[in-house]
């Protein structure tokens, strides 16, 4: 009995494992290459973007980029370069934290309130207002660059972190996402509470929020990813380079910095990895709706 169940489970694990392995290749490359010396990186990847006559280059044989997963010399030189020699890196790291954390907290809060109204309350123009939220999300950033600049300028936000944090808090993404998750919660749950005399706030706080936990956890993770990786907003709003987030540093790496880029990338990814491990349990073994009849 047990054995019969194990076999398909093994196959399942192997199948997903294969996909996961394929998906992880870029990450593995980034990690292993971060342990190489700068010279080795230069030798391996110097040919990128070179449309040169490579065939004639090395004694008649064609030459290619040398994808290597094992460093010749294990070296922490790149990390030293990033962490110790480059004072900018750590400051930018904290800049990112300082912007992303308030956005996650703020948007989760503001959006969960609005999402509750959109999902569980009825009022005129609800769907039209919601459609408006959705439409603004679709607008490419280039279109709203100038208007965004005008707004930030009028509010005196230019060149401050608030120019990024405030729009971050009021983003439509969280409202949309939480509304969808709250829509899952059967109306009977909330109605039952209301009949018992609970106010909207109690319903929101005691019933809807706990039930939407998987959604909240997923939202926090996705917001973190989106804002940790943001490029356009700081590009426009932050003039001072000492206010820049880390994402801008890693938005574009010059050829001569490829080596350092790998190490910086690994460090860049660490907080998100930690968050994944922490948050995953929430939206995976999250609350179960079993036991209450729908």
């Amino acid at each position, binding site marked *: 009995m047990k054995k019969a169940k194990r076999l398909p489970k093994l196959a399942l694990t192997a199948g997903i494992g294969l996909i996961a392995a394929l998906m992880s290749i870029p990450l593995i490359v980034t990690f292993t290459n971060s342990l190489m010396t700068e010279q080795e990186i230069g030798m391996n990847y110097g040919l990128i973007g070179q*449309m*040169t*006559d490579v*065939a*004639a280059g090395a004694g008649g044989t064609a030459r290619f980029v040398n994808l290597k997963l094992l460093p010749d010399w294990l070296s922490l030189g790149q990390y030293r370069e990033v962490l110790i020699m480059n004072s900018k890196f750590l400051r930018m790291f904290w800049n990112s934290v300082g912007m992303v954390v308030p956005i996650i907290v703020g948007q989760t809060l503001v959006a969960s309130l609005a999402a509750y109204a959109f999902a569980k309350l*009825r*009022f*005129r*123009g609800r769907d039209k207002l919601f459609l408006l939220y959705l439409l603004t999300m679709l607008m490419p950033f280039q279109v709203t*660059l*100038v208007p965004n*600049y*005008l*707004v930030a*300028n*009028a509010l*005196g936000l*230019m*060149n401050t972190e608030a120019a990024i944090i405030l729009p971050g808090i009021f983003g439509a993404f969280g409202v949309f996402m939480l509304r969808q998750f709250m829509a899952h919660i059967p*109306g*009977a749950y909330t*109605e039952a509470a209301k*009949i018992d005399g609970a106010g909207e706030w109690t319903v929101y706080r005691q019933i809807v929020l706990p039930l939407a936990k998987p959604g909240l956890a997923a939202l926090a993770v996705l917001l973190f990813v989106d804002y940790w990786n943001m490029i356009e907003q700081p*590009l*426009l709003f932050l*003039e*001072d*380079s000492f206010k820049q987030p880390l994402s*801008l*540093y890693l*938005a*574009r790496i*010059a050829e*001569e*910095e490829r080596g350092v880029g790998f190490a910086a990338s690994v460090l860049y990814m660490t907080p998100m990895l930690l968050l994944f491990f922490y948050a995953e349990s929430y939206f995976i073994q999250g609350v179960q709706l079993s036991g209450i009849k729908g």
Partner: protein
Amino acid sequence: MIRSNVMRPKGVMDVKTFIKKRTRATAAASFILLFALAACSGGGGKPSQIQIGESGNPGSETTIQAPTKTGKTTLVFSTLFPDNRLQELVNQYEALHPEVEIQLQAVQTDDAHLEAEMEKYLTQTNTAMLAGKGPDLLVLDDLPAASYVKNGLLVNFDELIAQDSTFKKADYFSNILDNAKIGGGLYAMPTSFFLHGLAGDEEALAKAGVEINDQSWSWNDFAVLSQQLVNQTYPHVIRTEPQYMLNWMVSDNLSLFVDEPKGTAKFNTASFTGLMKQVQDMSEDGVIGLEGIPYFFPVQINSPADYFESLKSYLSPNMKLYVKPHAQDGGTGGYFQPYRSIGLNASSKAKEQAWDFVKFMISDQVPVEPNHAGFPLNKQLYAQEIQQLKKEGSVQTAKEGPLKGVPIKVDPDELDALEQVLTGATHLVSKFQPDQLAEIITEQSKAFFSGQKSAEAVADLIQNKVTTYLNE
């Protein structure tokens, strides 16, 4: 189930009117906000900017608006690269005009982050300009000035000059002033400029029996000439790479390949692949080469002192500066590249003061050394440099350069020749209008010249990309 029952009792009216009022109020609030924003962007508004920090704080790129109550006029002057000459001009002007404060803003960066910083600078400057904000004055060298002009974001200096009786055109290199126009007006004041040309060995050319009329020669002529020159005194005719030669040849025959008004391109034709093969042959025959000494070097001359140093650096004894070939219908004259072109923001609140400062920048009041980068637009300033060169009698060369610090004697005859080239430069070379065509051709043709792709495959790629560009 339960709620839908709750929704329908007679209280409904209350809800409706309530919501209606609410939505109206929201709408009204939004419109007021909109209006306020429009008003702010439209005009006024400057003193209301809230900024933290000491004004004039060096090392910070922050826009700090000085409070107007002190009676000081503040000019914000933006440049991508930190520039000592501009700083000196600012300092001197501020000393002469205590009522004016000029904030020179530059981006501090290093080579590795230049591209990223440039992207940021471009986005921020473009957006600010379009929003009717931005600096009062800006160095346009690395900005899409032609697009600014099209959007009416810059002041036409021609108009300011026409109204200003103190401005004497004769004090300046008028050929530069006349030909630095973009979109029919002088929107970018070229405070100084470089020369582009070909440094060629006059004696070796004469020995080969080749006569050059560099006022009218085209790249086609050059290609013909080069057949007589190759493998004579020198192994190569010109030091360059084939993709650049291809671009030059295309620019010579542009009408063959591009019809801009119609938005059509003809690169997937036998004449273009023929041209590519011709350049390939030039490369194989040794006309084009990067190693060894050729007859011609493409050069950029940055200053009077550089004129001597550059021409001698190529280790041929008798180098002369030739005008670069160009298309027959392009007219005669050499090439110049404006350096430190200044634009005046059309939304500036202090245009008069800004214009006064621009005039100061192109005046002869702050002298420059003969080896200072950029020939000055001001003739008097140039005359001072020449005077100094003659007095010194020689030009010191760079220690790490090919001449290893050995001084070069200044020959007055050559100075006369230089002046002729300077006054004869009429073709503008700039980044005001990004040259997408050249970029596409250079990038794609490399694969052909390195033997990786066929001429036809490359021609097709170029054809597609150029067509896309022309029809945007």
